[in-house]
């Protein structure tokens, strides 16, 4: 266990991920993240200079669509599961002061 996650870090990661963690959950998450970082350290032992980072497992590129409108009025299905709706808009708590 070389890596240590501080209380501040777990707090900050929680804010970025919009998660409210209890003290026990924080401790558990810290332990998990430390293990992950340790694992990354093992991977870092490999010399990967000259190896291109892989973002896809399939050797496929250039998948495109043509610029043609194929969708119609999507209002009802988009709003079907809205927690709150006003007329044709989603309603959320006010975001700006």
């Amino acid at each position, binding site marked *: 266990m070389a890596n240590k996650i501080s209380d501040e870090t777990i707090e900050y990661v929680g804010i970025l991920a919009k998660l409210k963690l209890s003290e026990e959950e924080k401790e558990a998450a810290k332990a998990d993240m430390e293990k992950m970082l340790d694992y990354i350290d093992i991977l870092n032992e490999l010399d990967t200079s000259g190896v291109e980072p892989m973002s896809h497992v*399939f050797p496929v590129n250039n998948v495109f669509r*043509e610029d043609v409108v194929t969708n119609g009025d999507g*209002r009802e299905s988009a709003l079907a599961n809205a927690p709150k709706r006003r007329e044709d808009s989603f309603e959320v*708590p006010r975001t700006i002061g």
Partner: protein
Amino acid sequence: MTGQYETVIGLEVHIELATKTKIFCGCSTEFGGAPNIHTCPVCTGMPGALPVLNKKVVEYAVALGIATNCRITQVCRFDRKNYFYPDNPQNYQISQLYLPIARNGCVEIETPSGTKKIRIHEMHMEEDAGKLVHNEWDDTSLVDYNRSGVPLVEIVSEPDMRSADEVIAYLEKLRMIAQYLGVSDCKLQEGSMRADVNLSVRRAGTEEFGTRTEMKNLNSFKAIAHAIEGERMRQIELLEAGKEVVQETRRWDDNKEHSYAMRSKEDARDYRYFPEPDLVPVVISDQWISEIKARQPELRPEKIERYTREFDIPRYDAELLTESWKIADIFEKTVQLCGKPKKVSNWMMGEMFRLMKEKGKEPEELDFSPEHLAKLIELSDQGAISSSVAKKVFEHIFAENADPEKYVEEQGLMSVSDEGALREAVEKVIAQNPRAVADYKGGRQKAFGAIMGQSMRALKGKADPAAVTKIIREMLDAQQ
């Protein structure tokens, strides 16, 4: 005190691409319309929905990259930028961080001290967010995802600008390029062109940059100029008071002419960018680039050259005619219809610019058809209408796109070119004004003007003045 500081400005400009559909789905990009009408599972971030890239977005972005002297990234990828905000239904924005579509470009702007190069750091493709409408009285915001997924190109400049004037010149240059290419209409009021201003100040003569702030919510050139001046003063005052500038994002309120801190600026790593797993890489071959290059329309410098060479138009005129894409378009279409570039240029340089100034009309708002201007030139050249009538008709073409043939006919403005009718009118005037005739014969040239004026009035201005002059002289001389 302010003179001891230099302002350093870099810009992030977002341009909405004029595609018919969104970047990753087949929803329409049409502006306006009922909220959420142009939505589907992809652009509302439904779980499991998969994006597919619109090919036109790549072509437009490459076209912009070429026109701004960038190097195109021939293997480029998308990345996921994670953040939570209600305008972003997926809780991430698909953007480009590691391999943006274009890099290392520049454009030139004109400044009072000559041409200046503004370097472009990079250009990337991304999706726009939805629109939030804030409700003042009940503490809610309404979300409309019509704009979610509309394709954007973000152009990031180097911190090369030093004043609001330079910023506006740079924005005008980008707008002109995008409009000429047809990749965007760049309307600031509608948000199809938006600029975030990164600004810092430093003592004149120092090399290192001061702490910068980023200003958002700037939707007119006027707001941009105000915001730059306001932020510059705010930072200088802080430094003079021995305080520090905090790196943050500020929101400009143009009504109050004041900016407010929105949030402390996140680091790139706070967005936890990672390669977008739902999209495959884009590989842009040399051949594809040359195809896009070949389709690239003529830009302003080439147009100015061609107008002076092919149409024999003065350089100054060619510059004015190409200042806006819209004006150049009207000019070229009209020339194509009537084949008289010089006459078209004269009408546009004279009457059209005069009316635009008088009515406060922007080039983008011009809506008369080239067909009508071409017809007017024909009518005037054939002598079917006099030059004063032609000017009057043009005003109606300009204001309500009137069809000149119809208008002239309905208003009875056809020239009296029938020699008999002209003679008849002049004869009457001479008969009714013996004194003027006598004065003229007595050597008073001024009297000729009176006869001329009355004759033209009798003809309601619908006659060629040269023809009338000739007839009056003939008749008066014959009487001697």
